[in-house]
């Protein structure tokens, strides 16, 4: 099988593990429990399982879509082939914007965590400039640099998520999860929607697929990562539900960080400050991956813009948005819009493309 990308830029199939992890575990893992419980109450863990199962199908479809093309090309080329030059490019541009806003929302959410927990009076512009230059450094280094950072982010967060949950054991009330089923299907589906928002980001696979050496070998890793991340979310969610009573969870905006407040170690009296700082690495790698995908997408849209130029444009866009989007309500609106678009992207666009590419394949054969 011939690859369109030069051999020296490729990554081995196993390295899809940190990439998938980083894109699926966002800053939302710090506070997704509350939104989930809003609709389905303490039955919300069912939503996590539902979304996890559905994502396995989506991943399977993504691999089918991408491998339908013999040359191992990414989604932008397939779009052009399926919908023609103009319509294809409009869709590509939409995908680029989607990844750009995904990166921005992740970035903004992290800034909010810093503001609430670490430095309430911090000026945003200086730290934004520092972070943006760091992102520039990583993304301009190419896909392999992004993968490297993702690997670090993957390790950094794993070392605290699992021990955190173990240290809470004496405070857990398993009875909180009872009764097992007292919410309607609609409530559970509504919670599933906000759960999907946490998973959003893994669609970057559509764009970095050609960068994987022998991509068909990576499929099992992608599936096992979806399984692992679902399990991780499920563990965090169930531990949260057993740790907080339902009324208490309603009052807390960052449950995962709040749980860290119970841990006391000899040197660090508060672990959450350490955790937030470590989270920076994970978060930056997620942002870098999304931005890289956006730049990669730009490459094939109309003008063949160089990734470096589009990256600069995106980062300036970050800073401009930072200056204009000051109030919380417009950011919330943006995040909600993004999650709606994500819902249609995952459950509408991808199955559609799946059908389209499969039909094309059979036609070409016949």
């Amino acid at each position: 099988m011939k690859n369109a990308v030069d051999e020296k830029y490729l990554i081995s199939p196993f390295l899809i593990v940190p990439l998938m992890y980083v894109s699926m575990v966002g800053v939302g893992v710090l506070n997704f429990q509350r939104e989930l419980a809003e609709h389905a109450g303490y039955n919300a863990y069912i939503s996590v399982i539902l979304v996890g199962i559905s994502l396995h199908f989506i991943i399977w479809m993504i691999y089918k879509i991408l491998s339908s093309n013999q040359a191992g090309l990414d989604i932008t080329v397939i779009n052009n082939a399926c919908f023609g030059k103009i319509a294809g490019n409009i869709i590509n541009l939409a995908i680029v914007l989607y990844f750009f806003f995904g990166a921005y929302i992740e970035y903004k959410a992290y800034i909010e965590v810093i503001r609430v927990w670490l430095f309430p009076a911090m000026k945003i512009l200086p730290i934004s400039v520092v972070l943006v230059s760091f992102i520039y450094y990583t993304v301009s280094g190419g896909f392999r640099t992004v993968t490297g950072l993702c690997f670090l982010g993957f390790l950094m967060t794993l070392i605290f998520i699992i021990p955190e949950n173990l240290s809470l054991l004496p405070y857990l009330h398993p009875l909180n999860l009872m009764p097992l089923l007292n919410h309607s299907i609609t409530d559970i589906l509504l919670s599933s929607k906000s759960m999907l928002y946490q998973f959003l980001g893994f669609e970057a696979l559509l764009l970095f697929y050609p960068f994987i050496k022998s991509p068909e070998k990576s499929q099992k890793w992608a599936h096992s990562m979806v399984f692992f991340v679902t399990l991780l979310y499920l563990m965090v969610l169930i531990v949260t539900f057993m740790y907080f009573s339902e009324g208490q969870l309603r009052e807390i905006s960052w449950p995962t960080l709040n749980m860290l407040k119970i841990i006391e170690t000899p040197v660090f009296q508060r672990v959450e400050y350490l955790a937030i700082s470590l989270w920076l690495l994970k978060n930056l790698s997620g942002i870098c991956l999304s931005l890289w995908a956006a730049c990669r997408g730009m490459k094939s849209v109309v003008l063949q813009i160089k990734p470096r130029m589009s990256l600069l444009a995106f980062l300036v866009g970050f800073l401009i948005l930072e200056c204009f989007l000051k109030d919380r309500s417009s950011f919330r609106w943006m995040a909600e819009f993004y999650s709606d678009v994500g819902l249609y992207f995952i459950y509408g666009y991808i199955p559609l493309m799946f059908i389209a590419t499969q039909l094309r394949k059979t036609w070409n054969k016949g």
Partner: protein
Amino acid sequence: MYRWKTFSVIILFAVLSACSDQRIVNQICLVHAISFDTVSNGKKTAVLISHFKEQGKTELQILHTVSNSNISLPRLNTMTNDPLERGQISMVLFGKTSAEKGTGTVLHHFLRDPKFSSRIQLAVADRDASELLEITKKTQEPFYLSDMIEQNMRSGNLPLMNLHVSLFNYYGEGRDMFLPYLRIEHGEVIIDGLALFRRDRKITEISMKDAFLLKMLIQNSKNGSLMVPLAGKASNKPSEDFILLRSMHSKANYIVSTVNPVPSISIRLKLVTELQNVPEWVDLRSEEQLTQLEKALSSYFRTEIEKFLSLLKKNKVDPVGLGDLVRGRSREWNAQDFEKIYQRIKTTVSVQVKIASTGSA
């Protein structure tokens, strides 16, 4: 090119470490304990702060102010030369009247503010809480009260408590909050049982003995100890015969048999104890006497727990979380309806005491 890149990365990391928001320990006033009282002309807030002079030497000081807001830390801040820092608070005290009038706003504040640790200890005083701070100041140990409560949870009769547990009980439906109840005896602070709350108001207080029963009902009562009066056959003065026992392990099992219309719950307790002191006429080497003793202890605990539960029902407080148990078994449950039937709940208790060791005798 590479050198330039490495250089810029190092610079970026240096800038990221953000030395903008410094708090150096001898340029701030750490608050160690805070107390809330209701006085005739408003609400009184007092804090115990420390000044660090040199290594190993701390000077404690108490500041207080009266205002009409609940948390007057900003007002207290105007009385110190260095800024007050609330992240180190380890003890929150409620005075008698403020606990009876309601602690809800203070609790909500402690829930919302990310600076407070979840391990803060809360307690209720039998008088103005600021008097307890004065005594703590004399001990010259800023963490005296919180350490006292914590060691009593580990090696005494107090159940596991801290800010998180109290908030869990306060915000959770079908359970009520309880806090240690502190008194002053001969100029020293003493833990005299637990104060029981309904929502955010203190309703009643229970003795250390009942605290042990509560600990048995909600968790493993390891290390708690109790004096059990023994109606001895050979004794002339029954009131003076006591067994001092220490719990090594205990486990409570709850079975909710019916939910509607009035729930009935059967509680099965298993308690493994060590006898620390027995009257001289008890022969610990005799198997027969030991089994008899186990039976006597079991029936003693049964009646005591039944008495304790009826005390809870009489006061309409639910520190055990019986409401939560019923909630877990029913699809439709609401706190108001449950409150109405709480006093009529049927509870049956059975206790199985096992003597694992008879001490050094």
